């Protein structure tokens, strides 16, 4: 692997400055994805800027009732946080459905959002991948694509975003706090991720060198009734074959508000706005949930090996919402 320098900045400003000065530098969080990719030659930074010692490791209750989660809060700590468990069960469940105990102890909040696709072609430098090497082609489009996208893919890329946490955060309308060389700004999570389009190598709207310092989860009392349902090929330690994050707010049996997001279907955590629209204002029933999922998936374009994601996503939508409705 490529030799690299290791830098531990004193504060956020220094971290951002190093990235601005070093065109091939990368931030290092828990390293659970980046270090693998460096060994494989998929990512080849020459400087690692270790942000894990920055004072970004707290979960803060905000006056408005929301939460600010520091970028270096470890997945395990966040999942165990009493306020998260009480007010945002969807978050705790998404975190605990991911990876293994050891990995969750290392992985950070910010790093989790920016992890790379697990598409096997992306992870193998011997195979064509536009995301890894723009212009080289997408071997997955007509290759082994069982795990890949059914929504919003392009001829250039059919990768999925692998995070569970990001799906839950997308359902909660989370705001991502970012520091760049031009200062701090907020990015709604819906605007953080990009569709693959013709430039799948550009995965987010973050400017080069920008550092996620925290995520802010808005107050959402209804989220106390929320869940994350993940289906995978074995009982533990596997990426999702399908997943859904759901918040359901009922007024009697009428859906007052609902938040739905899907994992494992697209290049980004997929907020299911159309399904939400179908559900809102109507008396809840499993049949309504199924219709809502169908509306969301109407534009899906399954690849050769992943047509099963449509009935699967539909089934877990119905289950998640029905469980919330009856809880």
């Amino acid at each position, binding site marked *: *692997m*490529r*030799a690299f320098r290791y830098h531990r900045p004193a504060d956020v400003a220094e971290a951002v400055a190093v990235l601005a000065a070093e065109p091939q530098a990368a931030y290092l969080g828990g390293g659970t994805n980046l270090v693998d990719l460096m*060994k*494989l*030659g998929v990512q080849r930074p020459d400087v690692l800027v270790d942000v894990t010692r920055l004072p970004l490791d707290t979960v803060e209750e905000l006056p408005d009732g929301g939460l600010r989660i520091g970028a270096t809060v470890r997945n395990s700590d966040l999942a165990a946080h009493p306020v998260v468990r009480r007010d945002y069960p969807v978050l705790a469940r998404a975190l605990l459905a991911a990876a293994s105990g050891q990995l969750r102890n290392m992985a950070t909040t910010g790093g989790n959002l920016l992890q790379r696709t*697990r598409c*096997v*072609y992306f*992870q*193998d430098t*011997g*195979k064509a991948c536009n995301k890894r090497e723009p212009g080289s082609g997408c*071997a997955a489009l007509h*290759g*082994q694509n*069982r*795990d890949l996208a059914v929504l919003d893919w392009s001829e250039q890329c059919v990768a999925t975003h692998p995070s569970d946490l990001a799906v839950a955060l997308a359902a909660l309308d989370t705001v991502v706090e970012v520091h760049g060389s031009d200062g701090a700004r907020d990015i709604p999570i819906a605007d953080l991720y990009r569709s693959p389009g013709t430039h799948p190598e550009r995965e987010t709207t973050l400017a080069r060198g920008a550092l996620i310092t925290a995520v802010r989860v808005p107050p959402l009392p209804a989220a106390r009734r929320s869940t994350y349902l993940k*289906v995978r*090929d*074995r*009982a*533990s*330690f*596997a*990426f999702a*074959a*399908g997943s859904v994050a759901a918040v359901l707010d009922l007024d009697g049996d009428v859906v007052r508000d609902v938040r739905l997001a899907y994992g494992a279907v697209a290049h980004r955590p997929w907020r299911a706005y159309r399904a939400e629209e179908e559900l809102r204002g109507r008396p809840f029933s499993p049949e309504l949930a199924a219709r809502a999922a169908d509306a969301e998936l109407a534009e899906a374009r399954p690849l050769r*090996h*992943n047509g*099963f994601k*449509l*009935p*699967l996503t539909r*089934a*877990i939508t*119905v*289950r998640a919402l029905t469980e919330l409705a009856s809880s």
Partner: protein
Amino acid sequence: MSTVGQAYPRLEGREKVTGTARYAVEYPVDGVTYGWAVPSTVVRGRITRVDTTPALASPGVLAVLHHGNAPRIAPGQQPELWLLQEPLVHYRGEYVAVVVATSLEAAREGARLVRIDYDAGPHSTVLTDDHPGLYKPDHVNPSYPTDTAEGDFDAGYAAAPVRVDATYRTPAYHNNPMEPHATTAQWRDGRLLVHDSNQGASSVQATLAELFELPPESVRVVAQHVGGGFGSKGYAKAAVVLAALAARHVDRPVKLALTRQQLFGPIGYRTPTIQRVRLAADTDGRLTAICHDAISQTSTIHEFAEQTAVYTRSMYAAPHRRTTHRLARLDVPTPFWMRAPGECPGAYALESAMDELAVAVGIDPVELRIRNDTDIDPDQGQPFTSRNLVACLRDGAQRFGWAGRDPSPRARRDGRWLIGTGVAGSSYPARARPSSATATARPDGSFLVRVNATDIGTGARTAIWQVAADALGVPPERVEIRIGDSALPTAPVAGGSMGTSSWSWAVIRAAEALREKLRDGGPPTDEVTAEADTAEEVGGQPTRPRYAYGAQFVEVRVDADTGEVRLNRMLGVFAAGRVVNPTTARSQLIGGMTMGLSMALHEEGLLDERYGDWVNHDLATYHITGCADVESIEAYWLDERDDELNPAGVKGIGEIGIVGAAAAVANAVHHATGVRIRELPIRLDKLVGVSGLA
């Protein structure tokens, strides 16, 4: 009191859990360097140019070996090991160069910088049942006849009132021992010392001596602790040869370990299979005709013919029987041994077909197997030395709570879960190979037993130590056992479930010879040693059908909405001769059963024909069953005595646990859902959305 049969903890357990047990590349060596294997990036072709300049310019890189500059070796008996000798590529991932550097990272970076140009040709890497290259090999692994026939299958099948005709498919399965193939190689004064991860140091010693044209005593192979092999380390493989070549080339010690990704292919794998099974029976379920046609693949370098249908030759009786094997020679790495080669995929097909027959006849699948039991081996025509299949089925059925099972599919439901149970038979040959050993009496009253056995994590070291203590007639604390070194008396590999039978045979004979020498009984004033070599005795043993048997019971639940399959419980009962150590035996059996579960539900090598290799080549994308998938697993064994096996009375337990396990799972899935999946693995994508499931 007999030491054999007692649950002693592993002798090296403390070393292993405290991290002091050393594996092949963990020995400290002065001046050591690191090798990195460079795989080919084309499937088939000729190397036209190797540009080593950028790699050699990279910091820390000492050398790049390739066909143009590597030390010459003799063409041995295994063409796969004639590495870096010619500019030819036979499959994608074949090792075509080695980079040696002063650090592992520098070697890896150097490997990235080696530029190789190829003249690539067209390739064929996908096995199909109508592949134009299908042919009949001369024999199947290791030396079974390719085809067999008794009676008149076609007529018997046509005449029967009940028939099953089903084709089963299994994908490529990849051995993933925790410790990869890894070697530390050192040359000193023309002699070669390797610390190597293998299943038989004597065999690796012989192979290295042949390749490097050395007398065997100039090669020493040490394999004290081995982190698993499952057959893939059954003889010398690429890593040890590349390390030895590299060490000779740079004249310094070299450590070379394959990466996880590099294990998928070049070390061997279980071939994909396409198996057609036809069964015919009368209305009482008595088999009248059995046919098993197996198709698998081999490489263009070396023929390996998985003995897939051999299981069917001896398992159940019928007057009309036929088995065939056909191979396609593809541009792929050579398939090789993986836990119960032949029996494992073959039993999946036959024991699945038996379940289909039970449904067709309307007979309980345990009872169907009991009705078709036989004391005479249908293949050899001789009585089995012992056959306790029926006893395993009955005992297992009772322990599992099989009685009263409603045979109808989809009969049990618990909320969203459809629940089903399945059974399968299991058998594996009980064999032994010649071995040698020595036993030494010391003046202090202790004993030393030496045999070049290998403990690949099974507990073999402890088992032989227990056998030795009984054979010497002393408490085990007075016995020291040494294994895992080619400087010890020559012994066969840990493979084919015949390690313990073979090694213990020689150890017992050496102990007997020593006791003969020490007639007075007391400790000698000087060390006294006795040797034994069982070649003559093993070779002279009458040919008889000797098998271990088992019965596997499984309960699964299948999510009616998502198609997820989860294992509620798995229970196996085995008749495997004498059990030397219940603790390690249980580990072997449940390990095999778990691997069968993994085969049934999780593992699958996904080949991309365009690239000619498997695209899922790490443990994140090639799923192996994890602890959370095994909610309850139990293994039992019958108290079985068979005096026609070997002096220790053992049948071998390393492989039988996997045989039949996948069929039991698949049969349970059918019982739960009414859906018969005949292509493994049974993953949710094959069940979700299937009409009628929910």
